């Protein structure tokens, strides 16, 4: 168990640079592509309910994730904490 975790942890650390590079590449691509016009009549798919961040998630699920994980972030707005950890 421990050795398999170590392997995974090492592999994750090894790919961290790749992930960061990919994120930066996506960011640059997005910034450039964001200049392209998508008109109102072309937004049917973008307006689909499943594109909303909260569509397939629940408040309880986000709370469980917040308690299980040491990291935080990714949401916008005021949320109160708890003494759960």
């Amino acid at each position, binding site marked *: *168990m*421990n050795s398999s*975790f*170590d392997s*995974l*942890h090492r592999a*994750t650390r090894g790919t961290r640079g790749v*992930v*960061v590079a990919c*994120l930066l590449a*996506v*960011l640059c*691509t*997005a*910034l450039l*592509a*964001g*200049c*392209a*016009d*998508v*008109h*109102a009549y*072309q*937004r*049917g*798919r*973008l307006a*689909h*309910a*499943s*594109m909303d*961040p909260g*569509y*397939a998630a*629940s*408040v*309880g*699920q986000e709370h*469980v*994730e917040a*308690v*299980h*994980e*040491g*990291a*935080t*972030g*990714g*949401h*916008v*707005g*005021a*949320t*109160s*904490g*708890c*003494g*759960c*950890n």
Partner: protein
Amino acid sequence: MRANKLGLLLGGLALVMFLGGSARADDSHHGTTIVHTKAETSTYADSDAVAVVSPGVEASIEDPLSGWSVTGTYMVDIVSAASVDIVSTASPHWSEVRHAATLSAKYKPHLFGGGVSAAISREPDYLSLSAGGNVSLELDDKNVVPLLGYSYTHNTAGRKTTPFSVYSHVYSTHTINGALELVLDPSTLVTFVSDVILERGNQSKPYRYVPLFAQDVAPSVPLGATGDLVNQLRLPGKIIENLPLSRNRFALTARLAQRLSASTFIVSERGYVDDWGQKASTTDMRFVVDVGKRFFLWPHLRLDVQSAVSFWKRAYIGQLGPGGLVNVPALRTGDRELGPLLTTTFGGGFRWNIGPSLRPADVGLVFLAEGAETNYRDALFIKNRLSGFSALELEATFQ
């Protein structure tokens, strides 16, 4: 028994909100006001003897033409715990109720908009109050939307049977968000969220005791050592957790959502670092498949891997003097979420739109079920934790 009564009370409250929403919808039938209501009950249980039932309700009113909306939520956590941390300190099983509520409002009449929100969370030994706001601006014909937000949270932690005025810790949190939403093409949306979270004050848990070991014993304390073994090896006496009085946390999240002809792919990646030395990567994926016009099904995968904070030790070293413990480590914790771990979550859910034929999405039934395994790489008491989560939601929209 008390928890059951509370559950019934909340069930009644959910019903009242639904009926109330229906009545308001009749009043606003000829206007542009839309009322959304939602009732949710989630359950959680894990192999560390923790069980939680969380009923909750949500209601919102919006006027899409004017650009305003108001949303309120209320949720209760009914927690029952007999985890290894409790058992190992010879403490009895406990149960607790947490109440959490939020209220938010948004106004976006044209290109420029803003929102405010407030939240409260109350437990017998913990009170958290939060308020914040954000502003956003639509640029380039709504293809680029930057957002800037700030929120402040005031937390008070105490002991269950002692008033806060007698004993409590206070810490505050300043959260600054910057987000950028970009339309890549007619079916693809990318969102970046950056968070700067500044925590100030004492956030050590008043109940969390950290076992100390003699210098020659500490290296031999095994991963996942049982409570009995820890009690056998540790030094006598109890010492409470002590964390640094400030923490600066930084996160960058990228989310890609793409709507295909009959499915939606959503992936997000969050990178996280803080000045306690913790680093984490969280990857989350969902693939929503349209199974007909009324039924949507999705698998969900989430992978969270994190390193330990710099002062993390599986076995902290102490020194015993004639009068008890002396020379203890200044910073110490038993919070396993501050140690190295890997959590893999897999599950899924469905949404069944059961509204009238003209607007089937006006009434929806949502069900989620997930299982997670957390591997603790360097912790006492347990090596891993299995957990299960489920949620059932009923949503209704009136317009």
